[in-house]
């Protein structure tokens, strides 16, 4: 079977946005990791939160199929400028919808959701905010 990719997915795969890393040791940076090499996909998502509780910057790195790379890329764009609680309410569904994932690609959106939640949790832990 031929893998079918949507236009939006291919665009993010070919020109990913927000690729990079933030200094994970900074208190205002939250880092979330999801997935495993053995299962074919690893996503690291990082957010930097300003004093007002807004995500000022987000970046990602990913090892995985085009769907995961696109999900990471899309998320960094989507959460930037959003308030932390807003971003925390995000699920995999808008990711999958925006990138027009096929059912077989859905679990990569879930992995992206896990990474985002992990990044928020990591930030809150550093700040001493109870999760």
């Amino acid at each position, binding site marked *: 079977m031929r893998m079918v990719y949507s236009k939006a997915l291919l665009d993010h795969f070919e020109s990913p946005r927000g690729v990079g890393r933030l200094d994970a040791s900074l208190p205002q940076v939250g880092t979330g990791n999801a997935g495993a090499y053995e299962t*074919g996909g*690893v996503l690291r998502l990082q957010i930097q939160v300003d004093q007002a509780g807004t995500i000022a910057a987000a970046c990602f790195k*990913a090892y995985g199929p085009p769907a995961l790379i696109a999900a990471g890329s899309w998320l960094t764009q989507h959460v930037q400028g959003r308030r932390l609680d807003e971003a925390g309410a995000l699920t995999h569904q808008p990711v999958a919808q925006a990138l027009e994932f096929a059912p077989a690609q859905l679990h990569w959106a879930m992995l992206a959701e896990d990474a985002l939640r992990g990044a928020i949790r990591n930030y809150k832990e550093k700040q001493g905010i109870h999760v």
Partner: protein
Amino acid sequence: MQHPVYLDYASTTPVDPRVRDAMLPWLTEKFGNPASTTHSYGWEAEEAVEAAREQVALLVGAEAREIVFTSGATESNNLALKGAAHQLAQRGRHIVTVCTEHKAVLDTCRELERQGFAVTRLPVPASGIVEPDTFAAALRPDTILASVMAVNNEIGVVQDIPTLGAVCRQHGVLFHVDAAQATGKLPIDLAVWPVDLMSISAHKMYGPKGIGALYVRRKPRVRLVAQMHGGGHEKGFRSGTLPTHQIVGLGEAARLARLEMRDELPRIQALRDRLWQGLSTLEQVWVNGDMQQRVPHNLNVSFGHVEGEALMAGLRNIAVSSGSACTSASQEPSYVLRALGRSDPLALSSIRFSLGRMTTEQHIDAAVLEVRRVVERLRNLSPLWEDELQESAHADGVQ
């Protein structure tokens, strides 16, 4: 859209223009049925079929009357394995093959299991090459048939057919060889090789799709139970009107392969070496299977820290095969690479490059650039690659 550079000749080859020219008259003005014995339309078609049969025989060191035309290597494998197993079922019901064989052999063996035969599938070491001792040890008193491919379709490694055939002779076991990937790529001499049955395909050697042959040894005579019944064509081995144009195409492809192999092999070897030279400057690139005992047309490599699906999706300017079979839910790693002991991620991140008659240095250079571009891009995206680079930089610093 510009077509990508074709480096997938092991999947199929274009028909050589000389082959096409030889075929064309047999579709129109010379359309007779080779089985028509009552007029010249039939006679000239029959002559063309017999001339083609001679060319196929010459390519592999056989006699023309040992060549049976089929629809391709899959049918040849089916006819050889089922035909021999059904013929010899009274003597024994055990068959030996190798776990890296083509599906046309493995699935046929599975069907024979369903019919009550027992099948042993031999493992292979990381080289992909069957060890003769392992092979000999698998033969039992009730073994009637063994099947080993000459050249592996994925990794291009060449099995030691003469040695394995000699083992079969000693044990009185019939020996079938799937040579779909071998004809025209290495010298085959069935006058010397102890092989009883051998499958041949046209479209892997610049002939048309839909035609192939099965070599059936006459001395000592091999008997098969026919799998296709009808007009008793091909001495009863395979009924069905002979497609003259297809057979002429196979014959011409075989003639060209025989005449041009000596010049073609070193040329393709040089191109393959150029390809490997270009790719091996990347870090973490591994050749799958033995590099020496391999046809010059094949290079199968795995890339560390590159996910397979992303690799294939990224490679838009070359047409190659990957070590994964895309199923509806996920990517399945190649069973051949798994048998060599490759991990799933490395099996999935493999590429089979297969070179052919129309491959040029420009094609190779473009392929190297394309692979480097995609591999480096994906590694730069990978958090794991970044971690590994930092660790190795740290280790260097400590020293």
